[in-house]
């Protein structure tokens, strides 16, 4: 298991750093128009999304949650590119899937519903699969946190020095 974890770590680190560089270096539309605070916030959002996407790709697509996460990221990106305001949800999509799924996850009372809300793609799975996906998701999240922590430490230490 540790071998897989290390491999996952390396994979994720690589992808994450790539996307970090992509986010940080051009900085085309960040600084000029918006306030500094918003810049940071927007960048943090992108970093977060990049982190999750990198982890999903590193983990592999044989996991249901990685597929769900990546498809969600894809649809979000499409939405953002087409619509100015990211909060705008196209009526068709709003009607069909998200509401139903959210309702389904919420309808299930209690903890299982909460867990479904937390794990990507959890609303579609049944309990057994949900638990399995949760286990894998937790492992990947732990790796992600560890790597991000290391990256942050590395950068903060290098910048402060």
């Amino acid at each position, binding site marked *: *298991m*540790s071998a*897989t*974890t290390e491999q996952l770590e*390396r994979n994720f*680190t*690589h992808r994450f*750093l*790539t996307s970090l*560089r992509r986010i*940080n*270096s051009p900085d085309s539309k960040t600084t000029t128009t918006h*306030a*500094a*605070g*918003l810049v*940071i*916030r927007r*960048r*943090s*959002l992108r*970093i*977060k999304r990049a*982190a999750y996407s990198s982890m999903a790709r590193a983990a*592999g697509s*044989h996991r249901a949650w990685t597929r769900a996460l990546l498809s969600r990221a894809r649809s979000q990106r499409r939405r953002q590119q087409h619509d100015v305001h990211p909060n705008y949800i196209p009526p068709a999509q709003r009607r069909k899937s998200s509401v139903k799924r959210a309702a389904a996850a919420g309808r299930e009372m209690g*903890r*299982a519903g*909460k*867990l479904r809300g*937390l*794990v*990507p793609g959890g609303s579609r799975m049944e*309990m*057994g699969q949900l*638990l*399995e996906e*949760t*286990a894998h998701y*937790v*492992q990947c*999240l*732990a*790796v*992600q*946190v*560890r790597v*991000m*922590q*290391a*990256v*942050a*430490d*590395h*950068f*903060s*230490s*290098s*910048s*402060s020095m």
Partner: protein
Amino acid sequence: MEIDISEKDKLEQEKGNDDNSMTYQSPGSLTSDWHFTGANVTTSALSLVPSDDASCSSATMEESFAPPGLWDHQTSSQNTGFCDISVGTGTPVGIVTGGPVSLSWNPPSSVLRSGIFLPNAHGILPPSLCQFPADPAFIERAARFSCFNSGNICDMAHPFGMSEVMGLYSRGGGMMQGLQELSLAQKNMMHGVGCSREARDASLHMDHAKPEESPLESDRKSESLVRSQDEVKLGLDRSGVDSDEAEFSGGDQDDATMLAANGGKLYAKGLNSKKRKRNGQVGMPGVTTDDPEVQRKGGKNLTSTTNKTSGKNAKQGSQASDPAKEEYIHVRARRGQATNSHSLAERVRREKISERMKFLQDLVPGCNKVTGKAVMLDEIINYVQSLQRQVEFLSMKLATVNPRMDFNLEGLLAKDILTSRAVPSASLPFSPDLPMSYAPLHPSQSGLVPAGFPAMENHSDTLRRTIGSQLTSTSGEFKQLPDSWNNELHNVIQMYGSSGPQDSQELTGPVAASNMKDEP
């Protein structure tokens, strides 16, 4: 006890895998042929089941077919004790005998006829699993399968393994019936295990298998299959059991019960309704005395029945207790439990879920003492939420830290980061007992995580200052940042071991944290 003896015999015989093929032959008597490498399995034991079961299973699993008479004894006693255990443990080892394991495995046609299929069919290990090539690495894989990774493999493997198995089985001729059975059992068994591989191997061997069948045999097999369902947890071990069962070619054996791998549910019904001609012949105490439902090899249930049977020699036990039940198929479900197919399926599902909960318990730190699904789920939810919050926090932190990545190559950075993780951060002045518990994967590196928090705290202070200085026109949102950071930090610290230094700021609860959270 005879069982013990047979177990030993089996163990020795495991070495001579070829013996199996030699002994195979009695077309009519399948039962004795079932000795699968169960003995091997037990030795290799990835996860050994209680000795009672082990002894029972080993008896059935013996690769070298013991003389039918001896087997009868054993099988009878073993019927009660599911062989799953032995199967599970020995699967990779015992089963694989290089020779053609085509133990005449009579597909439990009777079972199939009953038409009861397990509703949740996971990959079932085909009985021919026992024919796994003795692969030392296989054991490790099997061991690994039983843990987390197994889920991955299983996901991939299920459809694949099933199809393969199915295809191969059909080739085996006359195995069609068994195929379904197997698939069902397989699915049940393999759910935690890398079944695909086993299925494939098993199916390969199926070609050799002769469809020797008797309704009795099939019943027996189904029984054991049912029983072995429990073994799923053992991962490969279970598959081993199944295969062992499958190869059980001793016709006289009531050991079919031992077979039961996941097919337990399936078979339970069918078997119960079926009349067994041979039940009377073989003193299968397990079968008759066993509960009418064989579902899994619940350790305690089996042992109780096993004890009964072993105590008296299976024959006596079975005959004494169950002349009336002779006509029924062996017990599939546990004693005193409903035989309804729905409830059996439910039970399987529940066991699957509890197995996964146990696995999660190991993952989530600090859950060892927690018992009960509800509390466990709460802990899991809290943990996932905290991890997601940490990700958010760190991404915010990374956004503020402006990295000079121009000159840094990714590879260089990656290496630096990966290597620097081994060394705790230098900026860690505080006690590292913060979220120690939440570094489940690499305890050796847990120093970093706890270190991170105190370090973060420092950073948050400095960041706050720098941010404050930078912002002349402060947006409300921005001012919130350092506060939320501290809040988040405090929240996390508090939740997971908060012995670190406390910031002067008050915790405002998860409100600030939730503000930051856009999406997981």
